[in-house]
């Protein structure tokens, strides 16, 4: 394991007018670590994720990412071109609704190949080869490579979105309710797949979810948010099996244990 964190977050605050989105959030994410952010809707977890992934500019605080070339850098001190490049090469973003993260008008193969082409891949055969490989890894039949995403089921769309993100070998992946748009029956398969890929690729992941079962299965550590602030933070098993904060206790009590 590397000697320094991949991401250092210090005092991140974001307001919407008088309303607080998230407040004074600080934590560190180490390489290969999966951090779950849980809380009910309105708790500020999606606002936090958007700040971390540079989709929203925080009002205060610092987000320092350990870049491949220059070491730790505040992402909002980077120039916009560098930040955009970072976001589409070294990071991945898996949206809750796959249509937000996919190009619905072009084939599955082009969706997976886009990031490769964006960083200069110009050999059709090799791009297609990698796309085929990644479709296989996310369990999409290879003969669907030339089909448009609109012919895919919900579960397949989400897996396609994952392949589209992972093809560039990102080090950090943000996931916003990755199973949120899926039927319960396909959620388990996707979680299984995600867990395998994360371990295999040694990804660092920040996954936002309101579903504690998802958190338990994927996350090493958990942050519990309420009203924009972090109320509890610890190892997943610890937080879920021995919650300290009354809100966490309520949250855990509200679901049935397996």
């Amino acid at each position, binding site marked *: 394991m590397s000697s320094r964190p991949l991401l250092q977050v210090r005092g991140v605050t974001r307001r919407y007018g008088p309303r607080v989105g998230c407040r004074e959030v600080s934590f560190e994410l180490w390489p290969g670590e999966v951090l779950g952010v849980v809380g009910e809707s309105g708790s500020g977890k999606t606002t936090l994720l958007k700040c971390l992934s540079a989709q929203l500019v925080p009002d205060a605080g610092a987000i320092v990412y350990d870049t491949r070339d220059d070491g730790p850098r505040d992402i909002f001190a980077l120039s916009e*071109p560098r930040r955009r490049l970072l976001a589409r090469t070294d990071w991945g973003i898996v949206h809750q609704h796959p249509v937000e993260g996919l190009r619905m008008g*072009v084939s599955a193969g*082009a969706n997976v190949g*886009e990031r490769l082409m964006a960083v200069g891949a110009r050999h059709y055969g090799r791009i297609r080869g990698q796309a085929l490989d990644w479709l296989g890894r996310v369990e999409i039949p290879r003969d669907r490579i030339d089909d448009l995403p609109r012919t895919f089921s919900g579960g397949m769309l989400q897996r396609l979105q994952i392949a589209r993100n992972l093809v560039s070998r990102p080090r950090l992946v943000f996931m916003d309710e990755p199973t949120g748009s899926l039927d319960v029956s396909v959620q388990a398969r996707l979680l299984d797949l995600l867990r395998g890929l994360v371990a295999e690729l040694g990804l660092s992941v920040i996954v936002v979810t309101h579903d504690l079962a998802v958190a338990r299965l994927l996350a090493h550590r958990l942050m519990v948010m309420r009203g924009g602030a972090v109320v509890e933070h610890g190892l997943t098993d610890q937080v879920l099996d021995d919650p300290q904060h009354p809100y966490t206790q309520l949250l855990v009590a509200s679901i049935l244990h397996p």
Partner: protein
Amino acid sequence: MDGYNFAYLDEQTKRMIRRALLKAVAIPGYQVPFASREMPLPYGWGTGGIQVTASIIGADDVLKVIDQGADDTTNAVSIRRFFARTAGVRTTERTAEATIVQTRHRIPEAPLRDDQIIVYQVPMPEPLRWLEARETETRKMHALAEYGVMHVKLYEDVARHGRIATAYDYPVMVSGRYLMRPSPIPKFDNPKMDRSPMLQLFGAGREKRIYAVPPYTTVRSLDFEDHPFDIQRWDQRCALCDAGDSFLDEVIVDDRGGRIFVCSDSD
């Protein structure tokens, strides 16, 4: 012509356009916004090219106007007549004699020299428009050279058709920096733009953009390493002049599907 300035536009407007042209030459392939004027010819019929020509033409210039490669198509005749009327300049149908060639949809077969300027009429200047409708976003994509999405389009072509299915207005990279539409010339003409001695000016009147390719600038047609750019070829030769290396127009000669092929370049 009475009541109008030399070459129709007033001198202040010409200066404004020349400033835009200088900027365009300084940043090859970059689309410079300019205050396109209302012209007495309709938008979409060459108002951009006409304004560029009007701004650079002098009394000693010799003008050639082609449309689809030919000097005698109606729109070429109309534009040539416009300049003969408003500027009184000499016009020609010989490529070698012209100092300025205004064109729609072709580059002449005879190579142009470094003392000649070609002015392209451009209907849609933005190469990313079909992928992104918003000007605010496409300008940002150019600024950051985010052109990967263009190859997504080419990828789709190869995946569907086994080849890149763009036959004209084929996108190019200029000087390794800006993605550019060469205007709707056939891709057959694309290689003529690369490191050419001629100065190439592009005017889009309705969209209010000017861009340029200075002499000897690299112009590379987008492709894949394993699906390289390729131009159209004909099995036939020109039925009139027997040329075997030119762009051919197909002319239907009877109602039984009989056809002949003739050079699109009438020179």
